[in-house]
């Protein structure tokens, strides 16, 4: 499908913004400025970017423990994100949630997930809400290969399918559930094959190719909006770093890592765009510079923000 040049540049910009954000998160974590556990999205940028490009502000996404990329792509504010990662009072969750619990209802971000797979029924409930209200909002539910083996994958997708809910189940198969590879946790090659069990399309897509993701999710969104129900999209991708910051990921074979590094989603897209003269070297440099500046401002905001006050500890348990 033909895509306007501006849209293509937006996609590229989003991927670069995610990459620069995550690189800085990794540095700040190593510097001891980020508490808890963080899981960065480096290597998987094409998936969030290509998928979320189809959504309006009032469409929903449900994210995962590796969720910063989804939030950036949906229009999340980097300064509030970084402040939350620093556990500051100005963060999205007032410094009480951290990396795995950011939600922003103004942009349809339902939340992330500290427990693998927990987002699947939640996302589907948002899809149900759209149907009850009679709106044409769609929901993209992100989850990983690990989550595809948890019971709520079955319960959630089955219910979405029988009720033809407007939900796209987007499996980011990065081949590893912490240290366990899909080769020993799945008896099939493609998680998308499980769509058959629910009577819905199951589509495999190259998760390193943003336009391939864009196209596959576009079809799924169209189907959802027509009331034809959910689609299971499996994006084959790879996390370039360990499961969490601090995990050296030594369980992964060197050759495998190198093979996937050679298929960097940002490099692939940049080459596509520069080859077709959609993107100049000058623009590449500008986009990079802007992203770095945006991230630097977010870090400055986070660093200068106060920590939550002790007397705020008990706030917001109840409405």
């Amino acid at each position, binding site marked *: 499908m033909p895509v306007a040049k501006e849209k293509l540049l937006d996609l590229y910009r989003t991927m670069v913004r995610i990459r620069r954000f995550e690189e800085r998160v990794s540095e700040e974590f190593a510097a001891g400025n980020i508490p808890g556990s963080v899981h960065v999205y480096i290597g998987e940028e094409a998936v969030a970017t290509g998928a979320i490009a189809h959504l309006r502000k009032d469409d929903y996404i449900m994210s995962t423990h590796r969720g910063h990329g989804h939030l950036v792509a949906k229009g999340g504010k980097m300064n509030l994100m970084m402040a939350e990662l620093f556990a500051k009072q100005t*963060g*999205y969750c007032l410094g009480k949630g951290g990396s795995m619990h950011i939600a922003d209802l103004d942009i349809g971000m*339902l939340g992330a997930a500290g427990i693998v797979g927990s987002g699947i*029924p939640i996302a589907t409930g*948002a899809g149900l809400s759209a*149907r009850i209200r009679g709106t044409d909002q769609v929901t993209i539910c992100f989850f990983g290969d690990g989550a595809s083996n948890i019971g709520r994958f079955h319960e959630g997708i089955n219910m979405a399918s*029988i*009720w033809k809910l407007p939900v796209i189940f987007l499996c980011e198969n990065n081949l590893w559930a912490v240290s366990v590879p899909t080769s020993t946790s799945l008896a099939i090659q493609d998680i998308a094959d499980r769509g058959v069990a629910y009577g819905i399309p199951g589509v495999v897509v190259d998760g390193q190719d943003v336009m391939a993701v864009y196209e596959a999710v576009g079809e799924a969104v169209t189907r959802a909006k027509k009331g034809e129900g959910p689609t299971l999209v499996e994006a084959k991708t790879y996390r370039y770093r360990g499961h969490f910051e601090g995990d050296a990921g030594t369980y992964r074979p060197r050759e495998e890592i190198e093979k996937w590094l050679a298929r960097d989603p940002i490099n692939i897209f940049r080459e596509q765009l520069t080859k077709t003269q959609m993107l100049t070297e000058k623009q590449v440099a500008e986009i990079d510079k802007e992203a770095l500046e945006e991230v630097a401002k977010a870090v400055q905001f986070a660093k200068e923000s106060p920590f939550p006050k002790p007397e705020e500890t008990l*706030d917001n348990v109840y409405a």
Partner: protein
Amino acid sequence: MAERQIAFREAIAEAIKEEMTRDEKTFAMGEDMAVIGGAFGATKGLLEEFGEERVMDTPISETAIVGFALGAAIAGMRPIVEIMRCDWMTICMDEIVNQTAKMRYFTGGRPQIAVVIRTATEGGIGLGAQHSQSFEAWFTHVPGLKVVMPSTPYDAKGLLKAAIRDHNPVIFMEPQILYGASGPVPAEDYVVPLGKADVKREGKDITIVAWGGITPRVMNAAQTLADEGIDAEVIDPRTLRPLDIETIVASVKKTSKAVIAHEANKTSGFGAEVAAQIQELAFDYLDAPIQRVGAPDVLVPINRNLERIVLPGPERVIEAVKAIL
């Protein structure tokens, strides 16, 4: 004019019907609750009234039922869902405890998680070990949840309406032995506020705190005691979290003695929490050790005679009272 009498199950259905009429953001879903009107008949007529867009039978998917409710609530809806039996709440504990109860706090307090999870609880009707338990103490342990357990049709209607209007997740526990019990229930709109205990019977000699299906039996026990010249005050907290400890403590300060009775297992039962709070707040007023009545550390057996031994009845309450008088 005589007060209208309806059954507990009808009071539940009426509360949901009134609230779903009042607020179009509400909807109801659960196993067998639409077409047949619920395993206990407590949702009869809702499907006919509101249609299948708002009243839905679900597959046997407890996890998805609660997860859907949470997702819909984040997206601005006010779901009323049913987990058919309290025993099966264990299937969806992650959804209840780790997701629904926490969502507001850890996202910075913005979303209103207006979810009501109804469930039939307790035993007494011969259904055995996986259909007779009452886990109120599991839920009162969790910050972010409210826990409600009515013992009369009047309270059932008023508390459920309050629960549906509440902006927090509410675990609404309906003692299954009471579904057929009738009592006066106004046909008009009223709510019983959450977190407010009810003094079911005034008395001066001893305070008996009881909730759930045992409460009517405690009232009978209080009558038996009255015949013997013992004047018991019976308090039903109705909401266990937040607990109206003030009403309980005021009573204990008057009577100086307390018995706490519930049907759930005594060990780590919610009675222990009530006892602890009473001694923290009214130690100097107590003339005797607080007594607790609950099931012994055993499962609920299928044999009716054995079930009657396990689940506490009025005679055990009377024994406990006499032990400290």
